[in-house]
């Protein structure tokens, strides 16, 4: 795509009009491109069901300790994402693939980021634990592009992607930013949509999860001629404590994971787990009202409610 003859700057993809950052770089490698990007190949990569001749570089090769980042962008809508203008990926297909991955222990944690119109509907059907999902807009909202580069002739970047990239460009290698700071950095008025995320399936607290859990960090290596010096006694003790805490956390998680897997059964999505649902009695009353199929029972309720009213009115009259 970067070398398309219509690109005025071949082999360069920019995220900004000022052309300061070339995202395509010099060492990029792409495994699936062109006509190979189909829903079938995508689901094959996720579930690992390849033909025998497919080489290792085209397989996901993840195991039960892997953290996977799945980033999808393009055109989409209510519970679907468009592939190549000829087919769609549906939310229940994605949920099924993730469920298969979980059953086969192909990931420990999965972060799904979707940047399309009505992106949050794409992960409505997810039920597997260990999955964190964020979409750039909710049902009924569109996601917009950020700005138009009149030199290249197209909009260079979408708003959600732009602000995600801006967040990461502000960090240096010593920052310990957490996922909650990333998710709260999205401003709905700047995005012109509500970035909605779903954490009911993810058991860790977002303040404790660093962004490097999913996003790889590019470390600058400094060559030194001197030998590596071991840490002093004082520091090493603290280091060991941190290590053990980490291990115990993992231990707890693993135990929890096993427990969940043993007693796993399909249950309805708890509406209170979702962000944005209020606990107001009016809404519960409205829910019950909507669920009522029997006009009959409604009238009965009305009848019962009216009798004390009658009693009070006659007592007042008397």
């Amino acid at each position, binding site marked *: *795509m*970067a*070398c*398309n003859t219509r690109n005025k*700057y*071949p*082999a*360069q993809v920019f995220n900004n009009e000022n052309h300061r950052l070339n995202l*395509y*770089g*010099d*060492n*990029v*490698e*792409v*495994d699936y*491109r*062109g*006509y*190979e990007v189909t829903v079938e190949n995508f689901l094959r990569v996720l579930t690992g069901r390849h033909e025998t*001749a*497919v*080489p*290792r*570089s*085209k397989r996901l090769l993840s195991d039960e300790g892997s953290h996977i980042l799945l980033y999808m962008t393009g055109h989409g809508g209510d519970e679907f994402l468009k592939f*190549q*203008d*000829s087919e769609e990926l549906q939310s229940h297909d994605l949920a099924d693939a993730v469920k298969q991955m979980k059953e086969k222990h192909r990931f420990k944690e999965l972060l799904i980021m979707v940047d399309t119109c009505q992106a949050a509907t794409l992960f409505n059907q997810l039920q597997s634990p260990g999955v964190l999902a964020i979409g750039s807009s909710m049902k009924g909202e569109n996601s917009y592009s950020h700005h138009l580069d009149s030199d290249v002739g197209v909009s260079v970047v979408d708003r959600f992607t732009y602000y995600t990239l801006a967040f990461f460009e502000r960090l240096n290698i010593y920052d310990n930013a957490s996922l909650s700071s990333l998710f709260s950095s999205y401003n709905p008025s700047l995005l012109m949509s509500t970035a909605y995320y779903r954490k009911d399936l993810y058991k860790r607290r977002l303040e404790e999860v660093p962004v490097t859990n999913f996003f790889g960090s590019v470390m600058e290596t400094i060559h030194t001629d001197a030998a590596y010096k071991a840490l002093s006694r004082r520091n090493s003790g603290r280091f060991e404590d941190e290590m053990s805490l980490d291990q115990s956390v993992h231990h707890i998680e693993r135990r929890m994971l096993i427990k969940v897997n043993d007693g796993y059964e399909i249950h309805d999505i708890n509406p209170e787990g979702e962000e944005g649902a209020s606990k107001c009695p009016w809404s519960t009353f409205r829910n019950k009202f909507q669920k009522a*199929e*029997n*006009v*009959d*029972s409604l*009238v*009965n309720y009305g*009848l019962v409610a*009216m009798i004390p009213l*009658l009693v009070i009115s*006659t007592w007042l*009259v*008397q």
Partner: protein
Amino acid sequence: MALLRRPLLLLLLIVTHQFLQFRIAFGSVNEEGQKQEEFYEELLLKPLPDRKLLTHFHFQSSAPPSTSNGRHHHLFPKAISQLVLKFQVKEMELSFTQGRWNYESWGGFDPIPSSNAKPPGVELWAVFDAPQHLIDALWKNLTHTLSGLFCASINFLESSTAYSAPEWSFPPASGKLRYGTLPREAVCTENLTPWLKLLPCRDKAGISMLLDRPSIYRGFYHSQRLHLTSTGSGSEGMDPGIILEQTLTVVLQPDSQRASLAHASEKHIQPSWSLSSIFGKQISGRCVLAETSSVYFLLDKGLVAELEHIHKENEKSEENVLISEKFWNNPSFELSAKPDRIFIEESSLLSKNASVLYKFEIEKYGESEPFDLGLFWKTPVVWLCQQAPLHANRFLMGSGNERGAIAISLKSTQSSEGFMGSNSNDERCELRVDVFQVVPWYVKVYFHSLQVFVDQQPKAVSDIIEKIHVSPSKDKVSPGVMELVLTLPCSVSSAVLTIEFDKGFLHIDEYPPDANQGFDIPSAIVSFPNFHARMVFLENDSLNKSPLLSKFQEKSPVMSYTEVLLVPLTTPDFSMPYNVITITCTVFALYFGSLLNALRRRVAEEERFLKDKAAKKMDRIPLLLSKLSAKLRGRHLEGPQAPPASSSFINSKSVLKVILIAGLAVYWQYYFS
């Protein structure tokens, strides 16, 4: 004595051990005569007549034959040697190309166009060293491995509709050759990255440092090619040696704005350029793992003839300035660096002129003194590159979505002065042309409709076509292959081959997402086996053998590729399945709905039934009581009691309830007030 003997013995042991170690280390080179792995890097620069510059990077890596177990590589890429061993590849070439080689301007007779002008997209061919029945399976696995290695969709060549087996028209002619192309494959940085990772120095040192990605992909033509040959048969216990040749050919336009503005008024002077102006970088040192690292600057024989002519006109002296020591006082151009060696091509019988090659060794340059070659033109020069005997073009004829015709036209070029003279002894001078064309199965070619026109006169097919091999296409199984040998008279000015075809139908799943663009017919290959594109530059010292110059000396036939044709096929309306499902379901729903209605529905049946029931029960109060109890029971058992079906009944029920409540209220008020 015993005490003294112990340390003496120890000392003796240590000394012999060291000596043995030395012997073993040198033994691998000297005694057994085994060669080491070698790597050469070279760059060739050649100015082209239409103000462009050809840059040709040539990297060669060789691994000697060794024992099967314990094959260690320190320069040669292990991925390639594993590929050769696993798939028993004898020779293979894979090229990624973007752009079209302009044969009219850039020439067609040199070794560079013959081996480096490739069809657009991906071209892969391989010769295997295995029994015939295994070759298709090996080809399939090879395409998958290469697609993983080079980040391209080469795995589309696995299906039998995508590859073919030419028998004798495609060099190297062998029964175990498989050939496939993907004309629409894009080529970008992600294909160059793994190609560079096969080099020992990657793109961090040596000549490959020049490879600035935006500059390469901005060129008019760029082609990266990988050619490997395994030498020696795989005898028992010995793995064959492998020679891996990687070339990158880029045709660029030097930015004339970056050149000096002094001669801005002289528009017809060729633009001046330097390595830093076209690539933005300089060569700061050689790759230390390379045996030789050199840059060549080639002046075409046509250009040399023009320069000598200009020089003779101006200076009126016989001295050949180009090879003399004072060449930088050349009135035509100026080079910014002094060459280390100057080669002149061995003049062949075909032409009087000879090309001139300047060689620059990179060994003496380094970080502090980078190598930057620049060329500054002083006078306008116009020349022609040597062309192939006939210039091949291909186009489509006909209109509509049902049928059409393919035409291959061969026009004679006027530049080559020599080939007429080569066979002038014979009265019947004949020019042999080989044509190899693969057509996908959905373009159904009728081979009986093949017609030949020579100098715009129709000729009988058997007069012109000496040998023909046709493999007709089978629907969805194999493409149509045509191999021809034409013998044309030497004085031919134009020849045209036409063949008619019908357009076939594809299944809806077989259409690509952009089906309305059309479908590609890959390039045809036109070769002239009697003409050899070679340039011989004799080197005096055989110690420093340059693989690039050895390649130029090989006798390879002159080859040219025609254009890729785009055939518009009939595309279906892709929304039709959805439309069909919607219409069918609507029809079924209407039919079955009305059928059930007609059979089972009785109008106002429930009301009549209840009226009858009410008429049976004469008393009012038990009726009301029963209704109340039914209400109470209905409130507690929800679910099994289905609500009444018809709407009229609900209405009457609610009206009754309202009346009941009103009656209760009135009675209460009246009784207690």
